[in-house]
């Protein structure tokens, strides 16, 4: 991955007005076994503010499993994760207070509109947003005329955009993204790319898996999950 000629000052400089304080995520000696198969053994890495970590590996190498471990959804067999030096399990509000996760599923309710979906989830995550902010974010992601429609009427790519809007509005320093570019058209890939750059510039951290080479400016590292010991 290289620095590409990116448009300076992307379309999404609005959602990240002030930088995050410098955080640090460290993972030490992670061991995970799924269905008798060792996915990774003694995985150790750390991530500083403003860094992007791309998790690579072939299908079934355990990329999604790793992301779920980092989110705290899956418990590793061994190893420890620390957030700013504090073991994640001992944080007051668990891992949820500092990360936003975008998984395979968009986590949208079919019967609610895009705006209602985002509003309820932002409130649940403890960062309520004014309706104007939600609408302008949806507008920015090209969903301007669709904010009031039930999500079930949207296409797969449009649903993914709604999920992205939620990610951007949650204002968490650590983003954990599972295949964020899947089902998006070229235009939205560009918007997301700029959002990722803006997030890194604001000292955010990103851990993602992707099969697409997407050039993002900023410090990047790649973690390749091997053949499983």
């Amino acid at each position, binding site marked *: 991955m290289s620095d590409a000629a990116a448009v300076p000052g992307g379309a999404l400089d609005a959602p990240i007005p002030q930088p995050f304080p410098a955080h640090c995520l460290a993972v030490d000696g992670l061991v995970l076994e799924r269905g008798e198969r060792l996915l990774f053994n003694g995985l150790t890495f750390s991530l500083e503010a403003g860094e992007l970590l791309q998790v690579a590996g072939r299908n079934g190498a355990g990329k999604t499993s790793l992301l779920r471990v980092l989110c705290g959804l899956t418990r590793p067999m061994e190893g420890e994760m620390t957030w700013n030096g504090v073991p994640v399990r001992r944080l007051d*509000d668990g891992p949820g207070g500092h990360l936003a996760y975008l998984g395979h*599923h968009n*986590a949208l309710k079919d*019967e*609610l509109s895009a705006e209602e979906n985002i509003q309820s989830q932002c409130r*649940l995550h*403890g960062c309520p947003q004014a309706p104007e902010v939600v609408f302008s974010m949806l507008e920015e992601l090209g969903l301007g005329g669709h904010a009031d429609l039930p999500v079930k009427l949207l296409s797969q790519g449009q649903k993914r955009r709604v999920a992205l809007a939620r990610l951007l509005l949650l204002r968490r320093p650590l983003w954990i993204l599972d295949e964020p570019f899947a089902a998006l058209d070229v235009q939205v890939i560009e918007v997301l790319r700029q959002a990722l750059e803006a997030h890194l510039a604001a000292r955010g951290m990103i851990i993602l898996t992707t099969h697409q080479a997407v050039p993002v400016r900023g410090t990047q590292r790649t973690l390749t999950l091997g053949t499983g010991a």
Partner: protein
Amino acid sequence: MSALLRALMALLRRDLLLAMRRRQDALVVLGFFVVVVSLFPLGVGPDPQLLRSMAPGVLWVSALLATMLSLERLFADDFRDGSLEQLLLTPQPLPLLVLMKILAHWLVTGLPLVLISPLLGMQLNLDGTEIAVLMMALLLGTPILSLVGAIGAGLTLGLRGGGVLISLLILPLYVPALIMGAGAVDAVMYGSSPDAHLSLLAALLIFTLLLAPWAIAAALRIMLD
């Protein structure tokens, strides 16, 4: 604290809104309750005295089965679309979030059963006091059904044939509520006070209210691991 309250209210509102937009789910439960209770007179004959003595048991067993019907979807929808993962990732205590989901479930499925029970009680020849005690017992008992049922719903999440499995797991656990609830109406029918039964039912409600949310939260964490 207020952020927590706001988050809990947001979840309650979301679930109630979803129930409003999918009214058929709640109506099926209510319809099932009414139909099952109405089938009994057709099966055992129209003898008023017989119907009256059977009424508490019939109403309670029907309420129990109607509740079972709605349990499978309690967490399954959220599980399927990924909302449950996000719920686990919110910085709010999971047992309280679970409690809100159960409150929404009870408001949509349990409360309508309580409200329609006088009509069905009259249909089975219960008198005024008996109906009042029946409603009181259902008001205390249906939340227990939702709370205990949610444990089963959590434990069978993502399994094939989860609905049948919930019934097998949960119906035995409904026995205490069934005995107290039907017993309260029986007691007043035979001229004694229903207080003992109602007090025990209330105690059971407090007990499940305190323990079930933690059990369900643990079940959800295990099923999503």
